[in-house]
């Protein structure tokens, strides 16, 4: 028998037990087996971190001017001058098996 932290998920609803009323959103403890047997969607499990996070300030996710730009990866450079052939000849490689690609050396 283990107690877990849950709350009523369904809107404008309540759970009545032991003379207490737990309305939607209020966390309370319940036996895990009882939670598993309950009507699907009526309760939801709550982690203790979720309760604490209610008190934390909301993080501004809108990027500002000070947001550093993401560095894009360097482009590859084709060193061979041979023109690319149709990829139909080798659909897996996609370059006819002759074209060579090399990374640019530093």
């Amino acid at each position: 028998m283990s107690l877990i932290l849950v709350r009523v998920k369904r809107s404008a609803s309540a759970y009545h037990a032991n003379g207490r009323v737990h309305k939607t959103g209020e966390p309370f403890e319940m036996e895990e087996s009882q939670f598993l047997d309950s009507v699907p969607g009526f309760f939801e499990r709550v982690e203790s971190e979720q309760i604490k996070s209610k008190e934390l300030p909301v993080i501004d996710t809108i990027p500002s001017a000070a947001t550093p730009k993401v560095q894009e990866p360097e482009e590859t450079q084709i060193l061979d001058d041979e023109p690319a052939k149709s990829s139909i000849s080798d659909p897996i490689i996609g370059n006819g098996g002759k074209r060579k690609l090399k990374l640019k050396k530093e």
Partner: protein
Amino acid sequence: MDPDAIKDMTYDQIVNNVTLQQRLATYFDEQLKEPLRTVLVGRQMFAKQIVIGPDKYRVNFNKIAEMGNAFGSMTSPTVGSGLDNIRIDNTELDLVFHWKEYQIPRQDWQVFQAGGINLNAIGAISASYMTALYEDNTLINGWNPSLDAATYRVNGLTASSGTSFSGADFATFGNAMTTVANGWTAFDAARVQGCNMNLLLSPFNFNKLQKSISSVGLRELPMVLEMLNPYPNMPKGTVLKAPTNQDATPVLTKGTCIMAPVDPIGRFFDLVIGANYINDVFVNGPSQMLSPMGGVVYTTFAPRFVFPTAIGVATGCGTS
């Protein structure tokens, strides 16, 4: 032609005046009545039922927020100082269709037509039974076409219940009464009063309650019935057994019970019925002489929950 009028006609009158489909439909309607009574448990939870006819497909639905407290005084009231009004949120609900088709071999029909031999109506009976079972699932749980037990297109009693309370294992004498008492406590707190209650149980828990007997020989079921009916002048509630699906699973999960008011005026919830188990028959194919007879049994309805708090669900009523 009125289907009831056919019953009073002679054979010749029938042959000369009614179509083949009408005869078959009338015959089957008589056959369907009794089988349908064995299901339709979900409807027994809805004391108020409004039949609007098969040509209606949408109904209005008002959710009402009640007024504030009333006033009292030993002097005459200062009328006009505290006017209040109820708030009505109006929405529209589509009626959901449930149906099942069936087919009758042409030979069977022709034998029935020629000699008046009873036509085997088991196809139509089975179709109506399965439609009713599907309706029970929708009214008791909800219509969940995605079968994920979470996304309901039509909310039934369980899917819309706004009150949950503790159940106790019915295997022990007195625990069913404890469960009902817990329900009343919850409803008192939610001000759901003035109505007697129905108690819908899974077949497993219903059977446990039926055989529950104390060490001195007291049966628990009559006591539970008494607890469900504290208002002598209101319609009586009862203990109902949920039906079982074709795959042997109960419509209401084992260990779960629903306690809901017998609400004859629709203060808390009601059921709107459009087509009420209509049985339509037709020649199912291109040939008027050889094609089999087809039929479809269908019903349309919409449960409306004005005050979902009035539907209480308890789990923990025992599963073993």
